């Protein structure tokens, strides 16, 4: 094979590859806490293509970094005690089937997966700990004491640090993924729910539901540097997501049924978009043009066009949708 021919073949393969990539179906996976199921939505047709029964309360939900699996935090209704219902369920994206249930510690609520796809960190709400789960063995490999009623989990883009929020103690614990030990704890605004990092890892953002604000954190010092008030403190942010260019943060305000568009260059709110009732989970499409919110009281998903800042569609899902994530097939 001549060198020129090889270059031409590579170029053709690249074009076909890109075409195949763009033609992959974008699927939205929605966890339904009350109906114990996952609704799978084709985002192109905005219709449900599959409903997966998971048998327990489904809350936190995230796709794996390689896009092949969807993880879901499941818990039972028995408080303060780990049972067989407390698991991380694994869904195969290709088949849409539930293929495994991993140990997770008691009452897992939120979690995040390291960028290398090897470890999952989950908050164990009623135990006040965070569990590290090896995704190859499906076993809990470490438990770390964090604040009271832990919830939000985020992992820095370089995979080194895990931030765990705790709703009752108003704290964020920082876990070093090399040692699985908490190396720092800091206080944030009242009732912290979710955490998210900027793409460059220099900033982290924490939503404070009762405080009605977003706390901006310097990850170099693990200290809050600014608090952005949402709707004069009356916004009640839960789920948050940062745009891929790091310039915007979108916050789902559960109690005010709206999404705040926060300009991160100026650290101020630029717009508030009304959505369905009690949005908690929020996800951003791969092309960065569309937002989705899981609306727990209206049992639907709002589809928001970011450019026009308007809801362009509403998709009915299961009962009490909690979180959502995007996968591709």
């Amino acid at each position, binding site marked *: 094979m001549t060198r020129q021919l090889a270059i031409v073949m590579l170029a053709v393969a690249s074009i076909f590859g890109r075409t195949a990539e763009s033609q992959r179906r974008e699927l939205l996976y929605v966890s339904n806490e009350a109906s114990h199921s996952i609704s799978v939505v084709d985002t192109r047709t905005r219709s449900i293509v599959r409903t997966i029964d998971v048998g327990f309360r489904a809350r936190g939900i995230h796709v794996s970094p390689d896009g092949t699996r969807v993880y879901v935090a499941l818990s039972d209704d028995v*408080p*303060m005690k780990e049972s067989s219902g407390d698991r991380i369920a694994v869904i195969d994206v290709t088949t849409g089937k539930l293929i495994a249930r991993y140990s997770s510690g008691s009452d897992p609520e939120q979690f995040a997966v390291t960028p290398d796809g090897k470890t999952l960190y989950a908050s164990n*709400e*009623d135990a*006040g700990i965070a569990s590290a789960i090896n995704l190859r063995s499906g076993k809990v490999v470490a438990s770390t*004491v*964090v*604040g*009271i*009623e832990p919830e939000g989990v985020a992992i820095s883009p370089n995979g080194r640090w895990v931030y765990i929020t*705790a*709703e*009752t*103690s*108003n*704290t964020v*614990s920082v876990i070093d993924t090399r040692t699985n030990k*908490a190396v720092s*704890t800091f*206080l944030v605004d*009242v*009732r912290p729910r979710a955490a998210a990092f900027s793409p460059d890892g220099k900033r982290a953002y924490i939503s404070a539901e*009762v*405080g*009605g604000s977003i706390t901006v954190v310097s990850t170099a010092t693990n200290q809050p540097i600014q608090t952005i008030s949402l709707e*004069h*403190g*009356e916004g009640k942010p839960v789920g948050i997501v940062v745009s891929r260019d790091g310039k915007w943060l979108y916050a789902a305000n559960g*109690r005010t049924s709206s999404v705040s568009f926060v300009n991160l260059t100026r650290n101020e709110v630029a717009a508030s978009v009304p959505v369905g009732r009690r949005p908690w989970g929020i996800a951003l499409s791969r092309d960065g043009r569309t937002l989705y919110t899981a609306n727990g009281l209206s049992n639907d998903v709002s589809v928001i066009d970011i450019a026009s800042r308007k809801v362009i569609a509403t998709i009915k899902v299961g009962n009490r949708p909690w979180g959502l994530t995007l996968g591709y097939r």
Partner: protein
Amino acid sequence: MTDGERKPLPDRRAFLRTASYAAAVAFSPRIVRARTIAGPSLTIGLILPEAETGASADALAGIQLGVEETGRSAALFQKGVTLTKRFFSSASNASLTAASLIRDDHATVLIGGGNEDECRRIADVCTMLGAVFMNVISRSDALRRSNCSRFLLHVEPSAAMYASAGRLAAEQTSPGPPQDCVVVSWHPSLERYGASQLNDRFGASAHRAMTGYSWAGWMAVKAAAESFLRVGANDGDTLATYMNRETTQFDGHKGAPLSFRAWDHQLRQPLYCVTTSGSGVSTVRDVPDVARSPRPARKILDELGDADSAGLCRVADR
């Protein structure tokens, strides 16, 4: 107090009480003003009547859960929260018990209470010695109207707040047969805003259902310990300043941000109207329903009980 405002003269009884405590302080070399204690710890003094009542037993269980939980939070910062318990046998003994907690046990925050007179006596000692007293028992309106001190904070709602909430609940009742409504400050069936998690944790710790007094005890500890961690000091003066600050707010699993009102040092909070059906099922409604109102939560909560217009403590704080 601002320039031009004058502190009202104390009444005769208050004068005599103050004079007797002043004498006690003067003649007892062991009584010292509460100060920052070496070591990263907050000592909370529990002060309740010796004769156990339903309210005091409930509050005690809430305080204990609060200390256990905030102790765990403080440990994350290499700090501690400890509890010392003392019980008083009479109103006159309440002041000595308060002084002992501050003087001997180095408590800078006292949590508990009793009847109006007992609370008044504890509050006077705390004000004199610079410790915070968080009342979680007495609902007396008179206590809130006359004993103005930034060291005296009320977590248990006032009688006026319960009465206001009852009137609001009656106004909000939908058409149909009238239903008896009991106004409470907490209920074990509450679920939203993390309430079910708190109810579960309390049940696991105390093996009983969480009542309003239990919640008040737990909340008082949470507010005190959180203030201690945020300001990094454990002296009563700094803690009182922080807790009374206009911008300070706490979360108590009631949905709305909770804060202390400047005019009566009462914790702003929603209450609940509980109706029980013939089959024993309780229905709990927020009163006022802050979440459904477009108005700011603080404005709505300020209308519960004594209003700012009463001009109570703003000019009379000690």
